[in-house]
Structures are given as structure tokens and as C-alpha cells.
């Protein structure tokens, strides 16, 4: 191994943004310090995808991952969450343009979004834009609640803490 490489400074962490573009649309963006080819590969090769899609903090693990990345091809993800029943997510790829664009459906429920992922390379970095279009406002709201359940109710906990604090101060 090259010793010089180890002393290179760690690049600054790129920011993730999430914006609700309309009642039915959600857009997530992030820049990666690598070519579009590399980022695309990490999204489309199951052995690579498995390594990042279900980080430890979410409490879920990706049990299996099948991807047939071509127009009309299907995918299926199976997640485990403690002792509860595994959850399945599946759908098909509507559009595949290598290193540039991926569009897929989420067919595990009637409320599933159509996801469009674009990879824009500029100066060796890649801007990733993930766009989700839900069938209704309610479907998007429900998806958000799902994410909240996965991550825990941080803000609710904060509120509880503040109220408890208020109560104990109020008594003294």
C-alpha cells in the first residue's frame, strides 16, 4: 500500500438535502467525491448496494437483494427488523441509462412512488438527485411516517424532555 495516500486529509462531508417540491413530490440531493460511473455502480451492483442501503443506525438489515438492472428488469429487497416479520420491497426498472439515469417503480403497495435517480458528473464529483413522485399526498405523508418510525421520534423525545424539565422546575 501507498503510505502517502493514508496521510491525505479526509474530504469534508457533503450535505444531504431533502425538499418537498409539491404535495406528491420529494427530492433528495447529495454530492459524492467520485465519478458518475462509480456512484452508479454502487447503486446497481447488489454486493455493493447491500453495504450502504441499511446503515446500522436504522436498526434494519438487508437480508437479500436481487437486481436485474435493465429497462423492464425487476428488483426485490428483503429487510429484517429484530424479531418482526421481514419486509419486502419490489418493483421494476422503467428506464436505465448507465452512469446517468435510473427510474424504477415501488410496487409493494398501492402507495408506492416512482423514483427517478440522476447522476451528474462535474469535475470528478457526482451530484445525485433522487426524485420521488407519490400517487397522492396521503401516500407521501405515510412514507414520511415510515421513515420516522425507522429512525425514532427524536423531536417527540425532545418535547417530552422539555416538558419533564418544565415540570420539575415548576415544582421547585
Amino acid at each position, binding site marked *: 500500500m501507498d503510505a502517502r*495516500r493514508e496521510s491525505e486529509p479526509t474530504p469534508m*462531508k*457533503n450535505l*444531504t*438535502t*431533502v*425538499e*418537498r417540491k409539491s404535495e406528491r413530490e*420529494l427530492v*433528495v440531493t*447529495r454530492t*459524492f*467525491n*467520485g465519478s458518475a460511473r*462509480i*456512484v452508479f*455502480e*454502487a447503486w446497481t451492483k447488489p454486493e*455493493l448496494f447491500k*453495504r*450502504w*442501503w*441499511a*446503515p446500522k*443506525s*436504522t436498526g434494519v438489515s438487508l437480508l437479500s437483494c436481487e437486481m436485474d438492472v435493465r429497462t423492464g428488469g425487476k428488483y426485490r429487497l428483503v429487510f429484517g427488523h429484530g424479531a418482526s416479520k421481514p419486509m419486502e420491497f419490489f418493483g421494476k426498472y422503467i428506464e436505465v441509462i448507465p452512469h446517468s439515469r435510473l427510474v424504477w417503480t415501488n410496487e409493494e403497495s398501492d402507495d408506492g412512488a416512482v423514483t427517478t435517480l440522476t447522476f451528474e458528473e462535474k469535475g470528478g464529483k457526482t451530484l445525485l438527485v*433522487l426524485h420521488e413522485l407519490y400517487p397522492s399526498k396521503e401516500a407521501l405523508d405515510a412514507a*414520511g*411516517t415510515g*421513515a*420516522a418510525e*425507522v*429512525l425514532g421520534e*427524536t*423531536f417527540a423525545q425532545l*418535547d417530552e424532555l*422539555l*416538558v419533564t*424539565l*418544565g*415540570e420539575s*422546575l*415548576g*415544582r421547585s
Partner: protein
Amino acid sequence: MVQYVQARLDASFAALSDATRRGVLEQLGRSDASITDLAEKFDMTLTGMRKHVGVLEQAGLVTTEKIGRVRTCTLGARRLEEETAWLERYRQLWDSRFDELDKVVEELKRKEKIDGRKKRE
């Protein structure tokens, strides 16, 4: 988003810095109450109590709803803030995923460099 959380914390702590407002929160923790009930309980004018409830509402600690001529106060966050919190949780999910994806990208880059070097040799 960071500024938002900061602003909200500032508002929350400012709201909690007053003994009456802490008492109001404690009271609402037991049951919902109207501004009139609270004013009586804390031996205060309606205007004074309205001001305190306004501060708690701004901090997202209390929600009020006017039904007929009575404004009822409930413990809890406003809907708008719930919506923002929801987006923040969603962002956290993607952020933690993308932090892991960063590692995969770095590894693939290193591998490419090594492979490229081997080819040149």
C-alpha cells in the same frame, strides 16, 4: 435545518425560563384547559395569560384551538413543526445511508487507481 433546530431550542428554553409558563405546562400535562381556566388558576388577567400561552405556542410546546368563544390549550407541537421534523427525519435516513455510500465510493476509487496502475506496468 440546523438553524431551524437551534431557533426552536432557543424558543423552547426561553419559554421554560418563566415559572408561570412552567406551571401552565404542568397543568396542561394533566388536562387541556381554556385561557380563562388558566388565568383563574394562576390568578392572572386574561391578557397576561394570553401572552404566556402565546410564548409557549411560539416555542411549539402548546397548541391552541378556538372553538366558539373558548380557546382551548393542549400540550404539544404545532402541525407545521411536525411536518418539518418529519422531513428532517427523512433527511437523516438518507444522510446515514449516503455516509455509508461515501465509503463504498472511496473504496471503488482506490481500487480503480490500483487497477489502472497495474495495467500501466
